[in-house]
């Protein structure tokens, strides 16, 4: 029997994987993809919970998360392009003009 816990643990693992990615990857696009991974983990949680609880709120939430993810992708990638134009790089370690 697949229980809710299975899904929850899986999503927790995925969420953590995403977090690790954000913390370690240097390519801004990859970092962003890891954030997407985190969001997807959240999505899985929501849908699993929604299915368990028997109401649609969680699924609607996922809907909005997807919307937001899309919008963020648009804006984020635009930012990266703008940065790349000036710096010829999207390595996060090159975001070091502002510090201290």
């Amino acid at each position: 029997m697949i229980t809710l816990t299975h899904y929850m643990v899986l999503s927790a693992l995925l969420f953590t994987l995403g977090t690790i990615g954000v913390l370690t990857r240097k390519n801004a696009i990859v970092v962003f993809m890891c954030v997407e991974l985190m969001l997807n983990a959240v999505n899985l949680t929501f849908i699993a919970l929604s299915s368990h609880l028997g109401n649609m709120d969680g699924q609607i939430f996922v809907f909005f998360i997807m919307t937001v993810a899309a919008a963020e992708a648009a804006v984020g990638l635009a930012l990266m392009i703008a940065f790349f134009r000036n710096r010829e790089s999207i390595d996060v370690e090159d975001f070091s003009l502002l510090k201290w």
Partner: protein
Amino acid sequence: MYDNLWLIPLFPFVGFLINGLLGKKIRNEKIIGAIATLAIFSSFVVSCHYFMQLLDDPQKIHQVVVAKWITAGPLHVNWEFLLDPLSGLMILNVSGLATLITLYSIGYMHGEEGYARFFSYMNLFAFAMLMLVLGGNALVLFVGWEGVGLCSYLLIGYYYEKKSASDAGKKAFVVNRVGDFGFLLGLFTLFWSLGQKGVWTINFVEIAENVHLLENGGLVVTVVTLCFFLGATGKSAQIPLYTWLPDAMEGPTPVSALIHAATMVTAGVYMIARMNGLFAMAPDTMMTIAIVGAATALFAATIGLAQNDIKRVLAYSTVSQLGYMFLAMGVGAFTAGIFHLLTHAFFKACLFLGSGSVIHGMHHAFHHAHLNDDPQDMRNMGGLRKKMPITFITFLCSTLAISGIPFFSGFFSKDEILWWSFASTRGHWILWAVGAFAALLTAFYMFRLVFMTFFGEQKTAAAAKDHIPESPFVITFPLMVLATLATFGGLLGVPHALGKLFGHMPNILEEFLAPVFEHTQHLHEIHAHGSASTEYMFMSISVAIAVVGIGIAWVMYCKNPELPGRFVAAFPKLHRAVFNKWYIDEFYDAMVVNPTKKLGTVLWQIFDARFVDGLVNGVAKVVRGSGRVLRYTQTGYTHNYALSMAVGVVVIIAICVIN
């Protein structure tokens, strides 16, 4: 009747204001001098008036409240005056001497820079001194007390461009302040302890009335009186606070005469006499006073033996004579003390003024000859009796008086003190012995002074030799008056023993002062072995001592002038010690002055700057420093920021969930 007592201090104050404010404009020395003399003379006249009135008045103690001064809670202080026989005598003494000395100064200070300044200070001093003696409560007395200290400071430092002079002034003030510290403490304790009994007062009359409330001989009274005595030692230059007086000779000679011989330095004696009722209740203090007085008398006399500066010899002699007065106070012979105060004022003022006259002449001569020799050094003098006859005669009279030659004033007063120091219930033969030995030394060094100055060969540099003039009349006149007083002043207080001899000559002074010392009369009881015959014996011993002293001086300084040199060669260390005043100043410097300065420096540069401020700045530095460290957490790398967030989340969750 005594409404206008305030006029007495007022006149000199007005004189002070006139000369102080307008002196620069007046310029004319004669007018300045006249104003000053007149001011103090007026107050002398008024004093005489009131004194006469007092003599006729059956009621001898009068208080005059002029105005309220400080009123707060239980503390009521008025500007009030007290006229009783004691203060009556003192105002006469002060205003009279001040008049003479001011007059003298007109001549002596001629041509000095700051002439008006000098006279205004003199008047201010007279004002303060009169406040002191007239003050009806301890605080008004204290006004005068500090006021004379201030004037002393100003007048010692009169030649302010001279470092030694201004140093001496400062020393005088500070040492006096140490005494004042004691005075204040005594006053506080007295006020508090009487207050505990329900009487909150610092008025002398009320203190005298209520002093019986305190435990006789108890700790409180002893502490109070010891504190007051500390004040007295400061003002009256007793051990341990005498060191300022010799230095004070940096001031012009009239100042030394007026302040450092005749009036101010006796304030301590006066103060003890004023509170005799209180002191009488503290036998321990009385004993201390007597011992200190005797010790000072002897100690200062020893130093006086070896000084070459004419004024310094007189200064140490003053310290020594004040010691006698304290000895008298200590054995309960208040009248004798006051008597000696008066006679001492006469002869010591005369001596100082005489020495001033000498210095004036020497200075004139050296100035004429363009020499830089010290006009005060006795080794430059000698044989002056011919050049300055009036000065010599008056000086000699006074010296005889101080040496205790019979029928000069000093004989009566000193002898009475010595007698009481033996015969009083509080007396002891050791006290007498010390006093007598000091008298021997006194006779010796005073005649040493006379012989070195007026007898023998003239040792003045040849160029100046013939230009030593006798002083003008304005200088010699006060000398003559004072010499007369010094000679005959003793008749005021002829001892009973002698009085009987001369056909029941009364002891005027004792009778007059009796109301003041009424409560302490019991101390005057003569203990067992005191009798008239003993008194005669002691008197003879005194005379003998004086004669011996003079004789030694004559041998050493007239007959065999090389003797002193031999003596010095025989006991070099002793001489050096005596000559350097037993190194007491150096001792104080090493024990008190330098450590205090050092402490100040340490507190400032180490405690204040390093420790306290270091702590303050240290906190600031730590804050800023930790800010600087924290700042480097802000690396600019995005994943570090993300890491910080993740760690934050992890930690917060851990903490909350564990809780």
